[in-house]
């Protein structure tokens, strides 16, 4: 019974994170959604470890991998955001989809800095 409760918690966290990752425009907010989804993986792995196979440490190893994935996701996400911002003055996923920076609807010019382009 408790297993189902934990898994429902994980499902809810995953869905909230998915909503954020799909609906947010800012790269940083998208990453917050991704973090919530990985968080759900942590809860799932921990709950499945205790309630189905506590004798083998596989579930715990999976939690460790998920925590690492979170750290890697954040470091690389911010590095890419920084590189993107530096090159194109863009911090929103919609504008990052364009291959060329040719103005148009994506160019809001709201940011200072990066004037040497």
């Amino acid at each position, binding site marked *: 019974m*408790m*297993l*189902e409760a*934990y*898994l*429902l*918690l*994980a*499902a*809810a*966290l*995953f*869905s*909230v994170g*998915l*909503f*954020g990752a*799909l*609906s*947010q*425009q800012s790269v*940083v*907010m998208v*990453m*917050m*959604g991704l*973090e919530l989804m990985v*968080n759900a993986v*942590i*809860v799932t792995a*921990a*709950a499945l*470890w*205790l309630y*189905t*196979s*506590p*004798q083998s*440490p*596989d579930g*715990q*190893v999976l*939690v*460790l991998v998920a*925590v*690492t994935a*979170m*750290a*890697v996701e*954040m*470091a*690389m996400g*911010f*590095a*890419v*955001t920084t*590189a993107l*911002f530096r090159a194109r003055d863009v*911090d929103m996923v919609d504008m990052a989809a364009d291959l060329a920076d040719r103005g148009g609807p994506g160019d809001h010019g*709201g940011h200072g800095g990066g004037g040497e382009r």
Partner: protein
Amino acid sequence: MTETVVFAVCAVGAVASGAAVFAVDSMARATFALLASFLFTGTAVLLLGLSYLGVLVVLMMVMEMMVMAVFMVMYMMNPAGLMPMSMVHNRNGALAVSAGVFLLLAAGVVLVPWPEAGGAPPADPAFALGEAVMGRHMLVMMLVGMVLFATMVAATVLATSRGRYDRYGDDLRREHPDDPIGGGLGR
């Protein structure tokens, strides 16, 4: 009984603060709402008897969220939320997709006949974890180490705008690097 109550509080708190991340205007508050969500899940993991991993989640997530706060303030147009503005696209579609995913996952959770636990958990799960990553699952540990190292290098390369030619001159002959901020060791 106590465990059920604590779990219920943690579960509701984790989901509510997770939802608050995308509801509040202030980016600082969004970051700390996400941190609260992680603290609640850390407590839930502690309830499962995984004391090491639970505390590790708390430790790591506080640090991670503080770094996140820095980047939030750096990149968001409206970090303090003083001028309410909307930065979302296709909100209804996202809502429909995530609600559908939740219903699907919940149906799976309820309908799948989960196997019974085969035995009691070890006395010290952290010890079992350590033995696993240093023994049978050593490949995981090695890969994690490699990936983290590669991440450090790649993130630094991506994020920095200055290379060695900026620091040591075009022919790399400069004796001391020309850095915007000097280091602490006589450089």
